[in-house]
């Protein structure tokens, strides 16, 4: 945070809208929770619920507009877009969650090491952070994937290895601010070992922030995966992923069929908003002073 302004809300009067809009906010949190749960369940259970072949090509049914049979229409090879989108969401969620986990664990370890050890380690980590923020993450991802063959693992690696920076920063800042608190001094002078201080005081304080960062990383990772796949550098084209579906729909878009483009995109937008809504509520709980904002 580069802001030097004193945060006036720290001691200022409670803003009236915080109370008046509590009802709307509850609705928003529950809507987000329902949508996120629906997306997760659909992605998890789709092979059981709809044992249809999402790759099944039916050239007699190509590019059908949305109807009762195909609620989201069919694509240029006659494949059902709803079914394929859910399968795509499954791949995207898998990639997104794995990459977010990789990034968060890396960020947690690196940030905690920098904050707790200080000195040379800290300077080294901060230089690494500078380096990783100097290249736009999508470009770094493009570079890594370009030098290897497209596939799920290069995508996970490229997203995971580039996104630890924000988590590391958050964790480092949190550890640094904790280190100067009196109760840590009290614990140390009371004879608590390093391990005990870390386990009793540092971990419980840092985990909520790191967890929040990890949750917010998921939509971000999905976004990156779909962008890479859209550019033809991510998931191979025959596999249903939301990015490859939108890329594959470019031909039919030019002949006027909008549904193969619109619906897979909504499968990115809606889960992103749902996760962001939940994470926002969580942030308000652990850090109620600041109103939450999205996200990516």
């Amino acid at each position: 945070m580069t802001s030097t302004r004193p945060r006036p809300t720290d001691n200022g009067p409670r803003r009236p809208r915080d109370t008046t809009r509590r009802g709307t906010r509850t609705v928003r949190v529950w809507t987000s929770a329902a949508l996120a749960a629906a997306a997760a369940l659909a992605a998890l259970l789709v092979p059981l619920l709809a044992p249809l072949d999402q790759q099944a090509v039916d050239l007699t049914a190509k590019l059908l507009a949305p109807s009762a049979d195909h609620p989201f229409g069919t694509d240029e090879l006659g494949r059902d877009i709803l079914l394929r989108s859910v399968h795509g969401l499954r791949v995207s969620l898998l990639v997104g969650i794995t990459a977010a986990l990789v990034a968060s664990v890396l960020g947690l370890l690196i940030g905690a090491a920098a904050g707790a050890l200080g000195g040379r380690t800290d300077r080294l980590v901060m230089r690494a952070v500078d380096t990783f923020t100097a290249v736009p993450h999508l470009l770094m991802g493009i570079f890594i994937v370009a030098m290897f063959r497209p596939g799920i693992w290069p995508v996970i690696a490229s997203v995971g290895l580039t996104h630890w920076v924000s988590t590391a920063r958050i964790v480092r800042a949190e550890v640094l601010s904790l280190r100067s608190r009196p109760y840590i001094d009290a614990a140390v002078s009371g004879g608590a070992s390093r391990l005990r201080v870390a386990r009793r005081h540092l971990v419980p304080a840092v985990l909520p922030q790191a967890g929040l960062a990890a949750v917010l990383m998921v939509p971000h990772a999905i976004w990156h995966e779909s962008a890479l796949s859209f550019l033809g550098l991510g998931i191979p084209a025959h596999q249903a992923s939301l990015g490859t579906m939108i890329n594959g729909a470019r031909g039919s878009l030019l002949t006027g069929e909008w549904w193969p483009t619109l619906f897979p995109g909504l499968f990115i937008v809606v889960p992103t908003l749902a996760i962001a809504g939940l994470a926002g509520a969580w942030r308000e709980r652990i850090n109620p002073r600041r109103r939450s904002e999205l996200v990516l």
Partner: protein
Amino acid sequence: MADPFVTHGTTEAPAPVAAPGRTGRGRTGPPLAALARLAGRRALAAVPVLTVVTLGMFAVAAASPFDPVRQYIGSDGLGASQDTLDTLRERLAASGTFAEQWWAWLRSALTGDLGQSLTLRQPVTEVIAERAGWSLLLCGLAFLISLTLGTTLGVLAARRPGSVLDRCVSSLSYLLQAAPPFWLALLAIWLFALQLGVLPAGGLTDTGSDTVTAGSLLRHLTLPVAVLAVSQLPWFVLYTRQGVLDALHEDPVRGARARGIDERTVLLGHALRSGLLPVLTLIGTRVPELITGALLVETVFSWPGMASATVRAATAADFPLLAALTVISALAVLAGNLLADLLYGLADPRVDPDQM
């Protein structure tokens, strides 16, 4: 990215406030000397960053299964003798360990030779010279539109939090933040180029014409600029809104209101001054996201800029071109960070540039 208030600047601890002695005397002009020293320090700090970035690129390329020599000659290489291949390897600077390759590349890069593009078969510097202008035009215009529109909407939304306008603007911002730019671009093409037929779907010139006229350029520029601007808009809106909202609860504003100054003057004269400071930082630190957006938007609209060349280079594993464009992006990001710091140092008299 996780939080609008965490910036991408190199300083992430709160910038230190100037010592009381300094401000006590009252600073009359901008601290130009201190800002120049800051720029010098940042330029020095950029050297190790760029060294590691370039070295990292060569390390990744060394681990890659692609052979640049085979790629360069393609099917012609099937009958080529080992001698020819070795000479070519020498010329493409693809022999030796990755550190040796890196050193050779760095030395020639410093003399202005960035090598040969493997796919476009022309010098990388030529590719960049042809395309840089188009990218700058696209990104610059989109950025200006996003900045002015975003701050205006943000201020309007912050004036009456919870109002219909605020809710519309905020919801739209969240929606746009979640929507991938390439998807927005395709939907825009569908609506404006195919349904309404008012704007071209991509490229720089109409089909069957090679000359770029001002009129056709303007028509071809409209959609890409609009999509890129819209995809950047949410950050400006949300930063401004939050900044002004916070500022409206600061002491100067409360003091001004208590003195009976009218709301308009309070908003424009008092709240905006400190409320727009975070937006100022955003001006420089949005460069990575602008490049990200350009990568996607230029590709969708077949815009002949550097970002679409990056994607083409990546799909063909064209290392020399990709490496040069990555380094240029890193330079742009570092320059953006410096700009953010300089603007902040200029605008906020409480900040001492020597401490940043």
